[in-house]
């Protein structure tokens, strides 16, 4: 191949890129997307999945015993979840919970693409509710665009003010509901009305209000395009076997307008009539017929739109449908689930995380003991010839009442704990520290370090509580 040809082919590649980019219309927020709203199967599913977020608003009002059922009490470092109270010391379970949900996202994405984005994400749901309000106040997309361009008039101001007030109302309520998970909800409402809530509460409500109002009201799909990391991460979890909303190009191409009166057998075009309804309903403004793309949140609204058109013109539904690239491309049957190792690996890690959480929740110890051996000095020689070690014992009491506890030590022969009978009050929900001296006659020590065990015992409600911790007794070098 001559050098000249080489340059020529390179040029054509670059030119192709420029041509492509010319067609690639990337909306970076200059243009507000006014998506058409229409009913349908997936629309109903979407409302259903969105209603899961009602828990976010009403959850804090549920009571359990004499307290809020779920309360993340940060000032008191206590986390109440129904009947369980978790202290920060048991927070390793949180990492397992996060792991579980991260993998749940991964496995859901591997199977069905970004369905979290399309059906559950707060950005999608809140935007959906905001645009629903917009549609009800300002009318359909054409009317909205016209209103946008219209000069300021009394009715425009009235409509816009109403819309923004309602958006703000939802935003404020979102902020308050978020804070209510961390702040007794009835106290919160009282404090808010009396203007007595703390600055953290006001600040959080303000942040959430501003965030909700801006992101759901103005930024909308731009958040999914540029702000959200999960949107990008999920891209790499999708493979050829993932079932995603897809345009059946075998069936649809070549596109062509519907010609009235033309007999079906004379038609040379595919099923797609290029009505662009799939673009009109898309909340992120993408054209699903270009295939899988970064803007697609897989909300399936284009499926509803296309199905409705297909029904009207008497062609089979499902020109746009949930389908994997593999089965579309080769017209193959979908890849069986058991042949997809990543799904198995994800599920295995998820079950491990679940087991861990279940284990953690069922084995929450009411008393926990930590032992810190004094370093300077490691030991001292006493005048009676015994070696003394000093320990700081930290007793964590996870119960809701103070408990009187005794401490005992077991270890090398001749071991004596000073003040063994002393009763310590382990304060509820707190760590109580106590200094303990242990002595062993020097001749009885056979090694420089000897293992020993501290135990703490207490009684609560007729139930014997106990916790032990291994430590060492240190003596002089032999």
């Amino acid at each position, binding site marked *: 191949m001559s050098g000249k040809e080489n340059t020529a082919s390179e040029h054509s590649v670059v030119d192709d890129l*420029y041509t492509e980019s010319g067609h690639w219309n990337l909306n970076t927020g200059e243009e507000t997307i006014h998506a058409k709203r229409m009913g349908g199967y997936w629309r109903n599913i979407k409302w259903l999945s969105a209603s899961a977020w009602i828990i976010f608003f009403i959850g804090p009002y549920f009571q359990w015993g004499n307290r809020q059922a779920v309360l993340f009490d940060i000032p008191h470092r206590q986390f109440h979840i129904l009947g369980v109270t978790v202290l920060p010391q048991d927070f390793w379970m949180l990492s397992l919970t996060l792991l579980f949900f991260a993998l749940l996202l991964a496995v859901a994405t591997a199977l069905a693409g970004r369905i979290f984005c399309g059906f559950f994400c707060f950005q999608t749901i809140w935007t959906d509710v905001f645009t629903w309000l917009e549609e009800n106040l300002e009318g359909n997309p054409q009317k909205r665009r016209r209103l946008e361009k219209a000069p300021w008039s009394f009715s425009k101001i009235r409509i816009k003010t109403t819309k923004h007030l309602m958006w703000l109302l939802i935003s404020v309520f979102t902020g308050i509901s978020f804070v209510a998970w961390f702040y007794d909800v009835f106290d919160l409402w009282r404090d808010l009305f009396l203007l007595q809530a703390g600055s953290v509460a006001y600040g959080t409500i303000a942040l959430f209000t501003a965030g909700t109002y801006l992101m759901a009201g103005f930024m909308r799909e731009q958040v999914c395009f540029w702000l959200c990391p999960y949107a990008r991460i999920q891209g790499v979890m999708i493979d050829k076997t993932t079932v995603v909303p897809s345009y059946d190009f075998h069936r649809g191409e070549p596109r062509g307008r519907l010609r009235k009166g033309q007999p079906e057998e004379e038609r040379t075009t595919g099923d797609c009539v290029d009505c662009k309804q799939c673009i009109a309903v898309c909340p992120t403004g993408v054209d699903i017929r270009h295939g899988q793309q970064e803007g697609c949140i897989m909300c399936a609204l284009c499926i509803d739109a296309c199905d409705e058109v297909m029904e009207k013109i008497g062609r089979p539904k499902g020109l746009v449908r949930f389908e994997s690239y593999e089965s579309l491309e080769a017209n193959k049957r979908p890849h069986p689930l058991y042949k997809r190792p990543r799904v198995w690996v994800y599920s295995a890690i998820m079950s491990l995380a679940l087991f861990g959480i279940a284990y953690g929740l069922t084995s929450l110890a009411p008393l926990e003991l930590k032992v810190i051996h004094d370093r300077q000095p490691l030991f001292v020689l006493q*005048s009676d010839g015994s070696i003394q070690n000093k320990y700081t014992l930290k007793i964590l009491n996870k119960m809701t009442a103070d408990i009187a506890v005794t401490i005992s030590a077991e270890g090398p022969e001749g071991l004596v704990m000073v003040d063994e009978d002393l009763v310590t009050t382990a304060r509820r929900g707190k760590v109580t520290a106590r*200094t303990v001296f242990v002595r062993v006659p020097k001749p009885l020590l056979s090694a420089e370090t000897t293992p020993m065990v501290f135990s703490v015992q207490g009684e609560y409600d007729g139930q014997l509580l106990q916790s032990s911790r291994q430590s060492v007794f240190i003596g002089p070098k032999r």
Partner: protein
Amino acid sequence: MADNNPFPGENNTGHIWDDNIRELSNPPPRWWMIAFWASVIWWIVYGVLYPMWPIGQQPTQGIIGWSQMDEYRQGVDEVEAVRAEFETRIKGMTAKDILADSGLSQYTVASVKVLFGDNCAACHGSGGQGGPGFPVLADDDWLFGGAIENIGQSITMGRKGIMTAHSKILSDAEVDGLANAILGGNPTSDPNFAQKGCVACHGMDGKGMAVLGSANLTDGIYRFVPAEGESLLDSIKHTIKNGVNDVTEPKTREAVMPSFSGRLSENDIKKLAVYVYKFGSGQ
């Protein structure tokens, strides 16, 4: 360059490489510009509210009058306010009373750690473990008594025990015998212990006398630890021969605890006594 731009009508900057790779002047995304101007406004507002512009000797002070030093002083005041309650109570109490109150002694141990680090730890170690040539405070062997009053007095007045150098009084063989008896933990087994007058200071039983600051010779705990490479026996002999703080003997052991009455307040000394007592073996 614009004259021979091969791509007329395009918004390129005229920077063209390899014939067709060119720099376009597309504006940044809208959200980026909003964020950019928002941060510019933030910067201006911040500069008005907070100290910022380095003009002259003093930077501009900011209209809300915040300063790092004020915040620091407020923080110190807050801590002092929390401590005040304990401090006023401690003021009217003796060290013994503080010890009897578990809450106050806990406060004392927590709050006086820094003072111990500044004034005592250089010789006695951060945990009272002592150092080469300096007494251990964590054990129960006290030269001048381990009662809380004794400890307080040691800090206030300082201590300087005296032991005469015995190199001219005792023969080498006698020193040898005594040193071995002490090493065996039974000094009274050597008749010289009584005959040569050791008992005058170390007592009939060899257990020392707190009033004089004389050492207990029976418990195996040594005030003067052997130097590098020296045996314990040699170290004992050195002490017997050269004494402690004996000005006539150049090789004498030096053992001086300075007085802290001029350096620390009575209150601080009281608290330090409690702290030392709590090392474990106050009596």
